[in-house]
């Protein structure tokens, strides 16, 4: 097993909720991320999956130190970067880059592709001569499957898939170790999405990249991940290897999620039990007591309402606590087999 590139321990990100217009005071906090721990090993893809408000994007932003953690620690390649100041962060920022969701709003429409892709170089390698930038930009465009001659065009001249390639080229400019892909293929049409997924996987092998992949799309996640963390209302409920998660989902939320996703196969869908799903995701401002999933949980136990579950094996759930193993309810549905 290789060393972790990223190690996140008991991370909390709380945003203050204020009231009042001129005289504001804090009346509460949104616990967007509330006690999240995971490692991302060198060269692997760890995915964070979950529905809106589960804290997957905030976790990624905290790893990049683009939002300040309230508590907990973040280690990058063995160094504690949780409290580093702007200057001390600079060398680390070069090593972690982000690919954003929306290829239309994440590229400056007034900049030529050469300047967009070259900007990280100008910022972080100011001593390089201009001709070197040009050469490097052309290389990068070639790497992501665009024509080097496209460097002098503007973003509006490109399709969604091509723009996402430009965003990837920009992220690769400084030869980072870590690429955070926040819903990087979600806005793309199916046939284009497949091209970009393949590109990301080829690049990972070629440059030995580590990916923190954030997505709500379980079929994409299944395709790209080594390990998967399922998040619900600011916490990780289950974290395990990709094949384990899909073959043997343990947390009731993971099972609910896998059952809810329709499979592109009508014969299989006809045989599948139609999912019984209770209610909707509650607001993070006011998360339920005890286990946060308990109001929607089909297997809820009395203690789930009052006590937050500990982590048992790969799952944060009272059902798997060693003492009440005998109360495990018989489960009829197998999710995502």
């Amino acid at each position, binding site marked *: 097993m290789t060393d972790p590139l990223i190690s996140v321990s008991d991370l909390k990100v709380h945003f203050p909720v204020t009231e009042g217009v001129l005289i504001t005071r804090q009346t509460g906090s949104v616990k967007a991320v509330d006690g999240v721990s995971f490692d991302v090993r060198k060269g692997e893809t760890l995915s964070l999956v979950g*529905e*809106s408000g589960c804290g997957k994007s905030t976790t990624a932003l905290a790893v990049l130190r683009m939002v300040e953690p309230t508590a907990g620690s973040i280690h990058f390649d063995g160094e504690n970067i949780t409290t580093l100041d702007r200057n001390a962060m600079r060398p680390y920022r070069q090593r972690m880059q982000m690919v954003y969701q929306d290829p239309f709003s994440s590229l400056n429409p007034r900049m030529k592709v050469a300047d967009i892709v070259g900007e990280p170089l100008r910022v972080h390698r100011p001593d390089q001569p201009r001709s070197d930038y040009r050469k490097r930009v052309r290389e990068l465009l070639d790497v992501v499957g665009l024509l080097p001659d496209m460097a002098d065009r503007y973003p509006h001249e490109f*399709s*969604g*898939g*091509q723009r996402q390639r430009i965003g990837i080229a920009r992220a690769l400019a400084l030869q980072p170790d870590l690429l955070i892909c926040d819903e990087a293929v979600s806005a793309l*049409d*199916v*046939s*284009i*999405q*497949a*091209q970009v*997924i*393949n590109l990301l*996987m*080829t690049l990972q092998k070629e440059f030995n990249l580590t990916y923190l992949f954030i997505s*709500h799309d*379980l*079929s*994409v996640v*299944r*395709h790209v991940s080594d390990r998967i963390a399922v998040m619900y209302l600011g916490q990780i409920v289950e974290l395990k290897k*990709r094949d384990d998660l*899909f073959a043997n989902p343990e947390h009731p939320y993971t099972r*609910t*999620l896998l*059952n*809810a*996703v*329709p*499979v*592109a*196969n*009508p*014969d*299989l*869908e*006809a045989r599948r039990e*139609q*999912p019984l*799903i209770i209610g*909707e*995701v509650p607001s993070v401002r006011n998360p339920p007591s005890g286990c946060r999933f308990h109001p929607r949980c089909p297997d809820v136990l009395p203690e789930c309402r009052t006590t937050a579950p500990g982590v048992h094996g790969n799952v944060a759930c009272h059902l798997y606590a060693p003492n009440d193993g005998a109360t495990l309810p018989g489960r009829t549905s197998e999710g*995502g*087999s």
Partner: protein
Amino acid sequence: MSVLDINGLTVSFRTETGRVYAVNDTSLHVDPGETLAVVGESGSGKSVTALAILRLLGEAGRIDQGSIHLEGEDLTALSELEMTRIRGNRISMIFQEPMTSLNPVIQVGRQVAEPLVLHQGLTWAQGLERAHDLLAKVAIPDPGARIRENPHQLSGGMRQRAMIAMALACSPRLIIADEPTTALDVTVQAQILALLKDLTVETGAALILITHDLGVVARYADRVTVMYGGRIMETAKATNLYRDPRHPYTRGLMNSIPSLDGPVGAALSTIEGQPPDLAHPPPGCPFAPRCSQRQEQCEKQVPPLRRDGERDIACVRHD
């Protein structure tokens, strides 16, 4: 008789650079109680087809050719006033964004009651009573309190349920749902689509489900129409289409989705290239420039949509 029968529909829009043909020579039908999914990528013409049925093409759009029959009556021949009597009454539409398609300053109950007052001559008091029943029918908890709330007080899923209640108010014969769950979380999506499907089967209405999600299609559709570049490529029963996709585009599309059930392969198969620019469509089959099996005639001539047993297909290879 089919609830809806579209024949040879062509729709174009006036733009600064000339006319753009968004839908070309499109024919489809939907039967009572049936769910027809229309799938395709952005710019395939699936939403424009829906808007053409409702004649909501705006100033710049027009229907150039073809007919749209609703239970035998040609909608393209109706006046604008006659169309207003059909929209929200015999045909209703559910949009993608429940946030922007509900009026933020009108109470939910009044919005659900409005079509009943407009089309069926109910008083507002009667309408609100029916709205209460409709909200209960779409499983909105505590409908008595909800009818007096404004949309922002409802969650995304509840708003979409309210939209469905509104769409069902006048017992429409045809419901068109354009990406009804794309903005919703997956656990809520499953609830909403199951509800919509049950209600169409129960009322015998026909449902056109416009989506880009081939999983949703597999779970909920009876038949599927695949559109690309403003044309229908293939229409078939859902089970037949997934078991045996015949059009090269359908096959490419099916192969490029990462699967949830099959083995995890190394690379996804892709369709090389980009979808056509509708302002400058290729002269022949819109898929020809990306098709691995194209022949010389594909680039010159548009293949007509041909019937083959239970399937419609537009491909020269399929004779």
